[in-house]
């Protein structure tokens, strides 16, 4: 953080913050926000659905325990390993690319794979499992007697979901979505391996600023960009904590 306010010589400056309004920085910020928001929403919706299906199984179910365990692993599956798996699956000679090409004559491979759209798909590999492990406890926190009380008072299944379950789950769902947003916003390694041209997201722009041999003396700009990320993630986590507090009060 201190580096964000220092010049090359170590003197105090606010000039680095000016770089945050440059076209490259704004484009990267937009890319990061779009990528994070898109994968957060997709991950939240699909992850919530999967979490519901998982917790609907009996606690002794092998499928339930296996799915939760695998989700725990996959949620941490980002980085180089995921990027390699991604390239091996739908890279230029990936197994899926070749299979679709051979069977249907379809060409899956294209530049989209290594830009924001490609990152959206690959990020879902860890966003959806993360949602499962974060959101499953919220489903488990729905007390059976709430459903029975609603039913006893005349509620249909739809009435129960509309008036009881969805309102109760909404804060936890929004909180988990924010967590996914922060998770994608801060992710670096997967994108670093996959994206070789351009800097579509902030972490890659920071990499360029710090490591570029062409543009020397940009390290402090990189620190300013990192500060920008810290501010965004902090705001998101504050909102997450507010929602978590409400959920914990309801679900205890």
């Amino acid at each position, binding site marked *: 953080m201190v580096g964000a306010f220092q010049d090359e010589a170590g003197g105090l400056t606010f000039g680095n913050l000016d770089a945050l309004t440059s076209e490259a920085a704004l484009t990267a910020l937009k890319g990061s926000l779009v990528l994070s928001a898109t994968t957060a929403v997709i991950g939240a919706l699909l992850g919530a659905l999967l979490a519901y299906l998982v917790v609907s199984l009996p606690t002794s179910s092998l499928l339930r325990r296996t799915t939760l365990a695998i989700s725990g692993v996959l949620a941490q599956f980002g980085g180089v390993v995921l990027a390699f798996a991604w390239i091996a699956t739908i890279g230029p000679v990936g197994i899926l690319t070749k299979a679709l090409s051979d069977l249907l004559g379809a060409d899956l491979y294209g530049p989209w794979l290594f830009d924001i759209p490609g990152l959206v798909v690959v990020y879902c590999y860890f966003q959806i499992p993360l949602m499962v492990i974060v959101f499953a406890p919220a489903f488990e926190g729905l*007390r059976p007697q*709430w459903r*029975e009380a609603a039913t006893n*008072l*005349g509620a249909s299944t739809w009435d129960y979901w509309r008036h*009881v379950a969805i309102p109760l789950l909404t804060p936890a769902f929004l909180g988990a979505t924010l967590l996914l947003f922060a998770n994608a916003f801060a992710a670096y390694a997967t994108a670093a391996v996959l994206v070789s041209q351009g800097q579509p997201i902030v972490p890659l722009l920071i990499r360029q600023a710090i490591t570029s041999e062409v543009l020397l003396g940009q390290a402090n700009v990189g620190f300013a960009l990192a500060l920008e990320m810290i501010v965004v993630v902090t705001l998101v986590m504050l909102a997450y904590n507010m929602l978590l507090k409400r959920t914990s009060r309801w*679900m205890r």
Partner: protein
Amino acid sequence: MTDLATERGLAVELSDLTRVYGAVRALDGLTLHLEPGELVCLLGPSGCGKTTALRILAGLDQPTSGTVSVGGRDLTRVPANKRDMGMVFQAYSLFPHMTVIDNVAFGLKLRGRDGASRRKRAGDMLDLVGLGQHADRYAHQLSGGQQQRVALARALAVEPSVLLLDEPLSALDAKVRVQLRDEIRRVQLEVGTTTLFVTHDQEEALAVADRVGVMNAGRLEQLAPPAELYSAPATKFVGEFVGLSNRLPATVTAGVASVLGQEVPALDGSATGSGSALVRPEAISVVADPSGGATVTTVQFLGPLSRVTCQLADGTDVVAQLASTDAVRLTPGDAVRLEVAPSPVLVVAD
């Protein structure tokens, strides 16, 4: 709302209900009739089937066989949300994201009542349980006892055909439990709704019920008014489960039991010949007598009453319950004589 809910105090009939879970028979031919407006308690140990019976009546569980009818209408296959029953659960079940008044009005909202009339009705129900001033609070701002009172108001707001209470007091501390127990009875008498109350607390059951049904292993052992259940248990299980009983050696001849050398009437259903008489502690009096054949071992002070344990010459312990004013004269080691009151006793085979 169906016609059922507009009527009050309907008869309830559970006929030959069985419920089998794998190898377990939770209900084994339960038949129970509730008169209109009556409060019946189902009492029994854990796993006796009392909650299963209540859940089947609510429609939250399905019987393996048998029928459920209310007001002469067969409800056996009617879904739970169409039965017009009000239920208070053992665990707190208020919707935590709704205020107290919204919780109480929830069932009315589902029935399409307009906002003003449901607020009026919910407010009346809250006044009935003494919580009118808490209408805008949330569940987490209420004590356990208050939450159960709101749950009672919510169950009654829809004018249910039957009120079902599933151990509603078991999560509360002793003082609140007694207060709320009395309040439930007051409210039930006021609204006149036929009520089935499930509990494992016999004091609770005996205090509030018009009749108490004692269940064991999925069957109804006895259904009787509290006083009758206590004084004239029909089976060994009821005699031992309800209240304290001494098991004293007895011999029955021509309807008369000989217990501790005294003759008392034997209840119908008693075994003949030798057996054990189930004698209540309060039916035994303790008289100082150096040649009485018994010795005081402990004296427990319980307030207005005291419990005195004596030992017979053969080592049998006998518990007597006396007025504390009488018990103060006794101390452990005193030689005493035990006398059995001439009230009927149940004698069971050993």
